[in-house]
């Protein structure tokens, strides 16, 4: 809740759950202490470039960074701030 309000205040800050298959983004921040430590180990910390390869309906998003695939629960995805990049991939 708190995070979503903050996102709205910032205006335009997007969260990971809005990604669709084939879209690309850069991670701006992860508003979850536990997940942040884990994500940075995977190479998915702040600044990492990701592309969305699967979005399970109402379920997790599967993101690729490099050759690495990571599944991220929908709730957590709402707490990951991103910047969407132009998507070259046709989907």
């Amino acid at each position, binding site marked *: 809740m708190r995070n979503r309000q903050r996102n709205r205040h910032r205006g335009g800050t997007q969260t990971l759950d809005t990604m669709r298959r084939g879209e690309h983004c850069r991670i701006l921040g992860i508003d979850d202490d536990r997940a942040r430590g884990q994500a940075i180990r995977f190479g998915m910390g702040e600044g990492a470039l990701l592309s969305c390869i699967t979005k*399970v309906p109402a379920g997790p998003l599967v993101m690729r960074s490099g050759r690495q695939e990571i599944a991220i629960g929908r709730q957590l995805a709402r707490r990951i701030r991103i910047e969407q990049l132009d998507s070259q991939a046709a989907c």
Partner: protein
Amino acid sequence: MATCHTPTPTRANAPASSTASTVVLAGNPNVGKSVVFAALTGTYVDVSNFPGTTVEVFRGRRGDLEIIDTPGVYGVGSLNDEEAVARDVILTADTVVNVVDAVHPERDLFLTLQLIDMGLPVIVALNMADEARKQGVAIDRDLLEDLLGVPVVETVAVTGVGIDELLERLPEARPGHADPALDADVLPLAARIGSRAEAILVLEGDAIVAERNGVEAHASADCVYTARRARVNDIVGHVLTTTTEGAGLGAHLSYLMMHPLTGLPMLGALLWLMYKVLGEWVASDLVGFTEGTIMNGYYEPFMRGLVSHVFAAGSAGYTFLAGEFGVVTMTVTYLLGVILPLVAGFYLLMALLEDSGYLPRIAALADRSLTSLGLNGRAVIPLILGLGCVTMGTLTTRILGSKRERFIATALMAIAVPCSAQIAVISALMARVGGWYALGYFAALLAIFVAVGTVLNKLTPGVSTDLLIDLPPLRVPRIGNVLRKSSTKVYHFMKEVAVFFLAGAALISVLDITGALTWVQTVAQPLTVGWLHLPKEAATAFVMGFVRRDFGAAGFFTMNLSSAQLLVAMVTITLFVPCIASVMVILKERGWKYLAGLLVTSVSGAFLVGGLLTRLLEVLR
């Protein structure tokens, strides 16, 4: 001022001259550590559950080297149990062999740099060199060696390529180029607590290591991690060249596995196949041979003959040893003729699943359904293991991220998940009745599973964690790896279970001989006969069910039950208390209050559901 000081591991500083004793394998999950371990040691010599956890640590020897395999981790610390176990083993190392997946250096080198920052003597095994070549990933080994400051050896563990070189260069393992920016904070701390490795961990906020050394954990984890991540990216930028984009068939299959439209049928097919293999081939054909032909046909008559030389048939001694629940007859038949083939079949399938990379994809697929039960996708791992053995599943709940999830998953397994031994006995019994009844059994269990989970999700305080897992590439499983993994697990499982089985059979025999069993049957008559409409001998099966769940189900074998009675009996015994072994584990993991609550709920729930089902079936007929 190191108060509660644990013995700091002593480490030889001059690696070449060290009498190299302890070599620890460390690396991310699924990078080939276990294969490297097997290649180095020849075989698995010893498996131990690390004190207090289930995370397995494998020990072996080669010459005068003690070699230890650790659980796969992405970093060392106390983010979860695996990390803590890996950390404590790594802290005892004289040499760390860091196994790195050449296909995923961006991910794996994070741990490498952490080990190097810790000042440990490291040698890197750049494994999966074949896979990297296939995927068009090239790593400049010499440059990587320079940048890290430690030896780097290319290996293909599965074919043994590079293992000799790894062994040869083991003495060259040395502390590499640590981040100099850390020194200002680390050096004074290291001087104070006497270990650079532990000082780094304290700096990264590891509260456990801090407490052991009587110091405060620092809050600089984020900043250390960010700097380390930047160094990893920088190194990878220098050493890595990719020629082709590694997508293709694997990527497409991966997508199909996780999309509900295609993933659910695939999962359904897998479960059906597992049932076919375990429930039909193994449970009836194979077990029919091992139990029926070998054990009942040859072994038991032979043992009865032997025992009758010492004790007269019908005497207490005879009943105890070779009677209906005989310690040397029925128990051995059960262990070797029924449980062994089943558990072997189950672990074989699990190892195949684990090796293929399918399990984490099932986790992603199941995440959505499991969140409504207060769990996340990760819980499929303990739950599926629970289908093998509830005890094993309960221990594995440690991989779950919160106390709340462990609470819910443990209860779900204890109440509504039948174990493989039990499924086998139940399948065998169900084979006698119509397919509708077998379907009814699984439908009833599924409904109860969902109901219990939904209620617990409402009632259990706290918040559950979210899914965040790494999906390993899909691979065709290696048969050698699968056999090695499953055979060690089967061995240790059998070893553990045999004692409980013997104790259980002995207990039942004593109850039988002293007449206590008849007493229980009479006392329980209102429940068994009055409420469940079963014969009064059913009480024996419930008592046995407490010893081992499948023991209980097997108790119904000799009773002449109608199809409806059988269904009621099976549902009730499944919901009824978990076996002694899992009761002990639950007591250890969750405490006595939890256990007491669980026992009361499951016993009353079992009889309530059983009674209602009896009436429902009678109305339907």
